[in-house]
């Protein structure tokens, strides 16, 4: 490994080190899983600082160290930190596992590698590092007998396999594994097939990740990787026309969840659909070749989705439906306030950051002459808005007499509130965030 590569991998190494530390610290009986989770959060936050300090530097053929990687790495670290806090405060865990923190940190390390990779093999290694611990995590937090974890594992494995197959074809077509080779290759069927399969594999990871807090890390990582891949292939002598394909993808990602959310009654699913719509907007930005807008939308997505998962964690039911939210307004008015702000953020209601992200992305689409996509996006967000409104309004209903009281979960409430305020504040004063995403360019 060269010095440049080491320098670029500093955040990943820090995370790996923290994971090792967490594994070691799990051995003594006295350290409980909760304490470990708090420590993991601390470590991830520290890594965010490290990444910022690391900044940009010399390029290497396998791992990039530019503004985009800095942004994404910081984002991954923050998301991991918040997720760890939520894990620490989650009262519903039946099986308390001490490995969870370590697994989470390893996954974060994988995510960092994924977003910084400029080589297909490195990308795959990072993907494996990212996804495998998350299968275990999903399985651990599930009740016994739940087939969701197995299904998740199967689909994830298929996706990774497909992506690997695509990468092999790309290697055959270009003769090298670096992204730079992608930009120089001619577009023979082998190349195209490889690219298609790689992208399909990556995207399907996002699609199959269930709506749990760890899925956000996957979202961020895959988005970062996609952004790089798109930039790499678009800058060749014969640039690929990403516009229509991503636009179609975005259209589907916008419309299907937007419509499906209208009649949905399960809370997790509603939030899941809304997050997919947000990712649809990210895809719109990619289709319009406006990468800073994509990064902005991604940041907005992270904040709102994490906050909503924090709120869902407060509910006592495993699979809450709308009726389970009844009475929340009376018992936990602060939580409902945070929920409202976050729901507005996801739906894109002004003056939250979600609105600005929507505007930014749609502006880019207009510039790219994708007016139909703009209309579709605007209309689809109506469906999301309606679904989120139902979510918020269900909290005001009167609870049935035998309702289970929501848990105290102070940390979760604080997290949700902080994120909600961040969503509102970023909407009112988006300057810093907008400046930060300007770094995402190639």
């Amino acid at each position, binding site marked *: 490994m060269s010095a440049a590569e080491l320098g670029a991998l500093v955040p990943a190494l820090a995370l790996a080190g923290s994971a090792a530390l967490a594994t070691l610290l799990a051995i003594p009986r006295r350290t409980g899983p909760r304490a470990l989770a708090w420590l993991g959060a601390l470590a991830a936050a520290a890594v965010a600082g490290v990444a910022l300090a690391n900044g940009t530097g010399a390029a290497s053929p396998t791992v990039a160290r530019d503004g985009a990687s800095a942004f994404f790495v910081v984002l991954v670290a923050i998301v991991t930190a918040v997720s760890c806090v939520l894990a620490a405060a989650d009262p519903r865990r039946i099986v308390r596992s001490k490995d969870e923190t370590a697994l989470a940190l390893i996954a974060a390390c994988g995510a960092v590698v994924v977003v910084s990779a400029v080589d297909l093999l490195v990308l795959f290694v990072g993907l494996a590092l990212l996804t495998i611990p998350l299968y275990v995590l999903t399985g651990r937090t599930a009740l016994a007998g739940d087939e969701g974890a197995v299904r998740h594992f199967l689909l994830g494995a298929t996706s990774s396999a497909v992506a690997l197959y695509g990468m092999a074809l790309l290697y055959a077509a270009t003769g090298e594994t670096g992204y730079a080779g992608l930009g120089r290759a001619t577009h023979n069927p082998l190349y195209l097939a490889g690219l298609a399969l790689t992208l399909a594999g990556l995207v399907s990871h996002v699609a199959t990740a269930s709506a749990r807090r760890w899925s956000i890390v996957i979202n961020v990582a895959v988005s970062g990787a996609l952004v790089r891949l798109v930039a790499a292939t678009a800058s060749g002598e014969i640039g690929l026309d990403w516009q229509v394909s991503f636009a179609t993808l975005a259209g589907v990602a916008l419309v299907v969840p937007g419509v499906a959310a209208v009649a949905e009654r399960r809370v997790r699913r509603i939030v899941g659909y809304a997050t997919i719509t947000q990712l649809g907007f990210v895809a719109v930005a990619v289709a319009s070749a406006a990468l*800073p807008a994509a990064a902005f939308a991604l940041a907005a997505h992270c904040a709102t989705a994490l906050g909503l998962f924090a709120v869902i964690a407060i509910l006592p039911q495993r699979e809450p439906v709308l009726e389970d939210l009844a009475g929340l307004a009376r018992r936990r008015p602060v939580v409902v306030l945070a929920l409202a702000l976050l729901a*507005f953020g996801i739906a894109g*209601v*002004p*003056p939250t950051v979600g*609105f*600005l992200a*929507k*505007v*930014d992305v*749609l*502006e880019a*689409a*207009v*510039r790219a002459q994708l*007016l139909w996509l*703009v*209309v579709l996006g*605007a*209309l689809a*967000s*109506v469906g999301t*808005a*309606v679904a989120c*409104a139902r979510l918020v*309004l269900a909290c*005001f209903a009167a609870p049935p007499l035998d309702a289970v009281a929501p848990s105290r979960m102070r940390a979760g409430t604080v997290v949700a509130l902080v994120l909600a305020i961040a969503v509102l504040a970023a909407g009112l004063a*988006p*300057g810093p965030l*907008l400046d930060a995403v*300007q770094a995402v360019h190639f």
Partner: protein
Amino acid sequence: MVQVVVLIPLVVAVACALPIGSLARVLAVLSGLLTAGCVAAAVWLGVGGGPVDLYYWAAPLGAQLAVGWDGWSAAMLLLSGVLFAAGAAASGGIVRPRAYFALWSLLQTAVAGVFVSRDLLLFFAAHDALLVPLALLLWGWGGADRRAATRRLAVMWLTGSALLLTGILALGVGAHTFSFATLAGYRLAEASQVLLALLFLSAFAMRLPLFPFHAWVARTYVAAPAPVAIVLGGVLSKTAVYAIARICLPLFPRGMADLEPYLLALATVGALYGAILATRQRDTRRVIAYASLAEIDLIAVGVFLATPGGLEGALIASISHGLVVAILVLLGAALARRIGSFGFGPGGLGARAPVLMALFVLAILGLIGVPGTSGAPGQLSILAAAFAVSPGIGLIASLVPVVIAVSGAGVLRAVFFGPPAVGGLDLGWRERGLVVALIALAVVIGVVPRSVGDLAGRTGPALSELRQ
């Protein structure tokens, strides 16, 4: 001055988070009166005007917080302040007052934001943001049908907003700016003007509402509590009128001119349609809903005509309509308290409640546009403008007040005439006070329409470039 108009209700909304109990209502009334007073003072002294760039909201997006006011804004802000104060005063006995008045003040803030924005994105933000407190007020404090009514209202308005956003972004990106002042000088091709005008109008047509898009009106007026109905009919519909006059007409003159025949047809037919349907209603709230629809579409005729006379008439008629709707809703609520339902009751109430009847008659006369009431100057100007452009439209539009009169006479006869019914007291001093105050305002406008008409003249250069 401009910031004051938006900040005062915002402060009240935040204050409602504190445990102030019933003080919230007093604060809400004061905030409405204070904003109206500030605007009136500013108009009197002639200060303000001209856009004030506060700061860049999101520079890469091209959005800026440009706010300012002119004649139209000031008139609408005055109306808004008065009606919000009136609605708050009428909200006695509301459950969960702090939440209610917090939402009320937020709504007021958003409405004020609509009227002072000089930047399309800010306008859109305020325009959409006001839907949230409105929906919450309807959902939380409404009558029996509130869920369905709120859903329908929200979906229709949101769909319009989605198209509006598309239009705004398309325009802003193409012109590299969102500010009104700069956009006014930007000349687009005719085809794109038509398309953009349609996109913009879709949102405003839902909100007015313009004829075929009125499916939300009847249910919402029935489900809404009286103060919310006041604000809905009096102020929120005017945001659409304001938006068409302020945005669509100056920015897309040729597009609007091309669309004018269709728009005029829709508005005229809608006005007559609303008036005819009002004669068939047996619930006072639905009568008010349809009569209000007829009046609003008549105002829309004035705006679509795009002549100075038509626009001035539309402004005066808007103010008048807001006041009259407020009065009718208040009286309708008072009536319902005496009869026990919102139907017409057993009749004969005139003997027991002569003041109520007298005020009702005055309000209906104002709705019809009898000279001496506030409805007259606006309606007459609009009709004059209509006749100047097309006698056919003018004739049909002239029929609208006649048909409204039929429904008004029917309501009066069913409720107040006939053998005296049992029970029912006349209006108390508190009820009387609010309505009389509003009527006094209406009379002032009726007798001195110049006061409002002058405001219409004080608009920016964009509006005065319109087709004569």
